[in-house]
């Protein structure tokens, strides 16, 4: 046994210290990107053919890309150059992450006008435009006879009327990115000229009415995500699709007969759709820009041969205008042509604040939750709210005074305690226990508490990273006064708090009920297939929850989900027609979907804790109870439950805290739908940090409020218990874990 452990520890130490990088004479160039598939392999081939210096390309997950770049580059730990969409350039420039491209841009190279404009900020070029992406129109040649001349011409261009269950035109109707194209046809844009919210007014309303009519006529699926658009188009259940080059790579080897063309005009709007153009840009960090060899690599990756390679293998449209299109690739030709009618995504930081309000309004209006006019003016209000200037800087004097006073009070308290007669004796007696807890204390203090305190400190600041200013308690005042709006309006702190509380209570109840029920069944010695059941029942816990949460979201899809299949089957059984439920259009059903997902994810944990706790209940006790004639319920509630309670309490209390802060499920399943009503406090905090212009101060203030609330809530029951015990005259309640015991009671 001991030898086995030693071997295990030795292997672990070896694995952890094992470092594959050996010292090289020349410092390698570090290149970060988020490419995968063909684009990635082209990049790696190009990098391998560079002879200036060794290059280390690193493909990062898209989700973590920006955050990582922002954290690593200022510490000198980041890459020398990186590839990202151009729209973050202004943000990166504000943080000092990018440097002017200088001679990294090949002299004499010509780029398409929108691409070059996209990487130019204040007259300086900040990167090498590599490729450009936008939406275009796909059509299936087996269903469509000719290129339609307008959106209204789609029907007439079909070879034959589509069978029922098929759609004329599939696209991500609820995505603001896709809707921006249609909005463009109606003469509006997500972001106005002066950085104001542009998706408002009669033009924007007309664009939504246009989509609503298409959905009502059954021509467009009402809530399709990218995967569904692909599936519909691939299976011939959609004749037309609006999508980007990624659809072509998904169709890849399948033999779907399709072509791509420029999005034709919308007659009702009087113009062509104007999709947003994203320019993949190779940017240099200040450190990289200082090295001649890095600039040489940038020229190499932006060269004409590289562009041709990229077009040939990855089929991406080059941002260079002096590269000839392969004549035999109609796809590239169409995308190249479409780029001429596209609008470069604005680089202004205000652009990032448009997505969330625009998307919420779009979903609400398309689900029939509000008229387009009402939804859009609400979106504008939200945008303005996020964009409003940070509170004025405050004087740090009160903070210093309060901190000093608190320190003094703490010191005084300590001093008074240490004067107590038995303190020295107690301290001496504590030395031995201290040895037991020392290592854990050091680790937790360093890695948990230090970052926590630093993170909490950010809540006293406001503004964008790089230009933070101390504002005192202004963030808290803002949140607690619901930013000047009605106290129980959607998205206000108090309403979100109520939702969070309901969420936590319901989840914990079901986790405990189901977990304990199944756990106690599993612990019965009569179970034959116990091993199988146990392993099968912990599957939800073993599979990473970001995957299963998405599977649940898919099951609740109104048109294609398994729940709809279930209601259909039930309807057939009883001979009635049940309308498919739009799960995420109503608070109750969306909230129910979230709770169902999280209960499913969380009960195995409680089940395992119950099983583990039951192993410590001596069987004799249970048998004795049975002999005494106790019924099964009595045995459980009078004998078993009291005995496993000590083990279940910490798990329950911590489970409640974790559920309170359970971000993944809410974010992935309902995404806050409808209209942010199912968001909980922690997902609000997340939105402030990542989608609402990186207002970290605000997010940190939410985090501190969550912390204060949880400490209050978990202590409340113990205070009541203490008072009750005092009333009963029982003194000397154990102080150590009362918070835990009370919290779970």
């Amino acid at each position, binding site marked *: 046994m001991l030898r086995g452990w030693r071997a295990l520890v030795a292997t672990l130490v070896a694995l*952890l210290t094992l470092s594959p990088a050996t010292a090289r004479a020349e410092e390698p160039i570090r290149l970060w990107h*988020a490419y*995968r598939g063909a684009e990635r392999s082209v990049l*790696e081939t190009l*990098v391998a053919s560079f002879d200036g210096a060794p290059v280390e390309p690193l493909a990062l*997950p*898209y*989700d*973590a890309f920006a*955050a990582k770049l922002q*954290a*690593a580059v200022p510490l000198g730990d980041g890459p020398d150059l990186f590839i990202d969409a151009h729209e973050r350039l202004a943000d990166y420039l504000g943080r000092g992450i990018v440097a002017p491209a200088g001679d990294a841009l090949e002299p004499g190279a010509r780029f398409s006008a929108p691409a070059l404009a996209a990487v130019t900020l204040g007259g300086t070029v900040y990167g090498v435009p590599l490729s450009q992406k936008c939406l275009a129109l796909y059509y299936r040649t087996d269903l469509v006879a000719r290129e339609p001349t307008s959106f209204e011409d789609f029907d007439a261009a079909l070879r034959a009327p589509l069978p029922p269950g098929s759609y004329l035109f599939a696209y991500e109707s609820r995505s603001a990115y896709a809707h921006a194209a249609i909005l463009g046809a109606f003469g509006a844009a997500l972001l106005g000229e002066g950085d104001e919210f542009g998706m408002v007014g009669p033009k924007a309303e007309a664009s939504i009415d246009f989509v609503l009519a298409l959905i009502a006529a059954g021509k467009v699926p009402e809530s399709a995500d*990218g995967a*569904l658009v692909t*599936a519909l188009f*691939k299976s011939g259940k959609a004749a037309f699709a609006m999508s*980007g080059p990624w659809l072509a*790579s998904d169709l890849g080897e*399948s033999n779907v007969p399709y072509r791509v063309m420029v999005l034709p005009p919308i007659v009702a709007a009087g113009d062509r759709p104007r999709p947003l153009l994203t320019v993949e840009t190779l940017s240099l960090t200040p450190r990289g820009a200082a090295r001649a060899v890095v600039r040489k690599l940038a020229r190499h990756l932006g060269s004409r041969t590289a562009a041709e390679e990229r077009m040939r293998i990855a089929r991406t449209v080059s941002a260079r205008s002096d590269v000839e299109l392969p004549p035999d690739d109609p796809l590239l030709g169409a995308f190249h042509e479409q780029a001429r009618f596209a609008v470069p995504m604005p680089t202004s930081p205000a652009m990032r604040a448009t997505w969330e309000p625009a998307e919420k309004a779009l979903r609400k209006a398309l689900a029939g939750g509000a008229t387009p006019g009402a939804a859009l003016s609400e979106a504008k209000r939200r945008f303005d709210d996020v964009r409003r200037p940070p509170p004025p800087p405050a004087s740090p004097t009160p903070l210093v005074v309060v901190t000093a006073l608190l320190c003094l009070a703490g010191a005084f308290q300590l001093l008074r305690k240490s004067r107590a007669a038995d303190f020295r004796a107690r301290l001496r*007696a504590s030395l*031995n226990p201290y040895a*037991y*807890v020392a*290592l854990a*204390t050091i680790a*937790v203090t360093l*890695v*948990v508490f*230090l970052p926590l305190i630093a993170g*909490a400190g950010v809540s006293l600041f406001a503004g964008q990273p790089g230009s933070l200013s101390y504002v005192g308690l202004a963030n808290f005042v803002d949140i607690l006064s619901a930013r000047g709006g009605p106290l129980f309006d959607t998205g206000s702190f108090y309403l979100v708090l109520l939702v969070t509380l309901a969420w936590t209570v319901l989840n914990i109840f079901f986790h405990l009920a189901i977990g304990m029920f199944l756990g106690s069944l599993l612990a019965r*010695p*009569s179970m034959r297939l116990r091993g199988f059941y146990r*392993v099968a029942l912990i599957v*939800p*816990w*073993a*599979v*990473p929850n970001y*995957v*299963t949460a998405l*599977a649940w979201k898919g099951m609740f899809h109104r048109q*294609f*989900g*398994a729940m709809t*299949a279930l209601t259909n089957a039930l309807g057939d059984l009883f001979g009635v027609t049940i309308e498919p439920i739009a799960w995420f259009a109503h608070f109750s059903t969306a909230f129910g979907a979230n709770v169902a997902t999280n209960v*499913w994810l969380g009960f195995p944990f409680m089940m395992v804790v119950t099983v583990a706790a039951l*192993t410590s209940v001596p069987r004799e006790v249970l048998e004795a109870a049975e002999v005494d004639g106790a019924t099964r319920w009595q045995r459980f509630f009078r004998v078993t439950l009291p005995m496993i309670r000590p*083990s279940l309490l910490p798990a329950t209390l*911590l489970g409640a805290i*974790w559920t*309170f*802060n359970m*971000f993944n499920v809410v974010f992935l399943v309902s995404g806050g739908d409808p209209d942010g009503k199912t968001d909980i406090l922690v997902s609000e*905090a997340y939105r402030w*940090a990542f989608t609402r212009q990186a207002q970290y101060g605000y997010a940190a203030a939410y985090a*501190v409020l969550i*912390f204060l609330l949880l*400490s209050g809530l978990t202590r409340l029951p113990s205070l009541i218990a203490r008072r009750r015990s005092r009333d009963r005259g029982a003194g000397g309640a154990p*102080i150590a874990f009362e*918070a835990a015991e009370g919290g779970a009671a």
Partner: protein
Amino acid sequence: MNHEGKERVSWLEAALTNLVMVVAVALTLYPVLWVIALALSKSQSPEPRLFPVIVDRTTLHFEEVIGSHDASGAWLFARWVLNSLAVAAATAVVGIVLAVPAGYALARFDFVGKAAGVRALLASQMFPTVASLIPLFFLLHALGLLNTRSGLVLCYAATAIPFAIFQLRAAFEAIPPDLEEAAMVDGATRFQAFLRVVLPAARPAIAVTGLFAFMSAYNEFILAATLLGREDMFTLPVALQRYVGEHDQNWPAFAAGAILVSAPVMALFYLVQRHLVAGLTAGAVKG
């Protein structure tokens, strides 16, 4: 296992219990079957279906994930599996080694600052990680542990300690103190008694606590993605997350990866649950 004969259970009751279990297992596995169907299908069915079906069965997605190589041709998938297992196992070991004595001290001793410490441990769980992520990044940079698996283990172990301490403390409290006292009467020191008598008795609880630490480290994504900057250092969740881009999402490969990720955890759980049963029948807890 000789207990089983003693307890008389009517066949009706056994059938009912098994029925309940089968229903529970079916409901539990249902969403997972969707994930499996997605991973094994070449294309997705755009029909609402009650039961997951595999359309054009293919192992392509599994091959894609398993066959991940880097530019120089090194087999990355194997590295990711090793990294994940090593990091998670090291987290469990380090977390347990640090938490066991602390949990024991909280269960058996009284000392100055105990109540405050317990409260602080509980409080540490209440602060959302979203706000302490960036400071943690700076801290690891200062310690020179950025981009290392050891740094990741340190973070995971420290965050797993509070729960582990609570869990172990409850387990130690359930063990009668007479056990150590008897050993100490026989001449053992307190620490020896702890090592030789208490630890073996708490084995099931330690195993489960270790499993919890292992699982949380094994499935974690955000910290790992933020703290690791080299492809050969990645853990499986970070590597998997790359199949989900901004526009371009490869859900089938993602699902295939998720299944591959969960397999070792299932195997581990199977081992640990036998350990639990062994702990029960050996009667170690009863003393």
